[in-house]
């Protein structure tokens, strides 16, 4: 990590000694902080979760709905996730449960997924994880930029789905 990174940086030992102050600056002053050790060879970034969630808003879930013989399936093909049900609500709830379970195992074993074709799923799954459970269904119904729905208007009032602990 270059010493010229235009972010407030602090050495690990100083951060450890002044963790309360570091956290206050990140949380209250919304100041991202780079913590470095081993002469900058290793680094981590501290950032408020709300700010990160806002930055990830462009990572839109491109869900589709397929009807077949009285069955409804919600497909998130890019993640290999499918949700099944008779109705849209059931299929959305099932897809969300599958997506949460995928996010759980992804972040429990990120080193594994980072070496696979799924490495790029990280920002979408982090966006899901940073979204309150009661708002996660809306992520699957999020229109593309500039679209307000088939005939315009406000965002639909979508049903909530049960949360999964640890999601």
């Amino acid at each position, binding site marked *: 990590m270059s010493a010229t990174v235009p972010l407030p940086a602090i050495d690990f030992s100083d951060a450890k000694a002044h963790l309360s102050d570091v956290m206050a600056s990140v949380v209250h002053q919304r100041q991202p902080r780079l913590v470095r050790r081993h002469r900058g060879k290793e680094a981590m970034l501290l950032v408020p979760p709300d700010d990160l969630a806002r930055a990830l808003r462009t990572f839109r879930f*491109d*869900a*589709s*709905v*397929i*009807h*077949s*013989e*009285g*069955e*409804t*399936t*919600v*497909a998130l*093909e890019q993640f*290999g996730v*499918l949700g*099944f049900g*008779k*109705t*849209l609500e059931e299929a*959305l709830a099932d897809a969300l449960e*599958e997506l949460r*379970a*995928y996010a*759980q*195992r992804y972040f*429990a*074993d990120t080193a594994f*997924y980072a*070496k*696979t*074709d*799924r490495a790029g799923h990280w920002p979408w799954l982090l966006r899901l994880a940073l979204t309150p459970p009661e708002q996660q269904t809306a992520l*699957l*119904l*999020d*229109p*593309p930029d500039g*679209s307000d*729905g*088939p*005939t315009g*208007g*406000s965002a*639909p*009032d*979508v*049903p909530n789905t049960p949360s999964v602990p*640890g999601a």
Partner: protein
Amino acid sequence: MRTATWQEIEEFCRKDGWLLIRSTGHSFYRKVLPDGTVLETHVSFAGQKTMSAGRFALVLRTQLKVSQEDFWGVLRTGRPAARPSVPLPPALSGMPAWVAGALKYQFGRSDEEIAAMDPAAAEA
């Protein structure tokens, strides 16, 4: 077209060399292909009821990454499918979820009405 039961999907996973992983309270099957592609599918659907043709095609295309012929071949022979397995079932014409959601929650359309709509026309 003959479609599979969830039991047959699970049987396929076992014969095709998928690993059953119990993780964070959620069981699923995983197979890592030689090129690093990770395939995953969950196993909570025990049952002898067959699924619709559309759903079966989606499972083959999205999760198992196997042609219909190879799927049944694995069940018949007990040997893993050669990959890439072609042809995968074609992509189904689905409706964007945001369109289906708006039709249902904003305009009060029923599931049956939405299912009967042409996806492209509904979006327009």
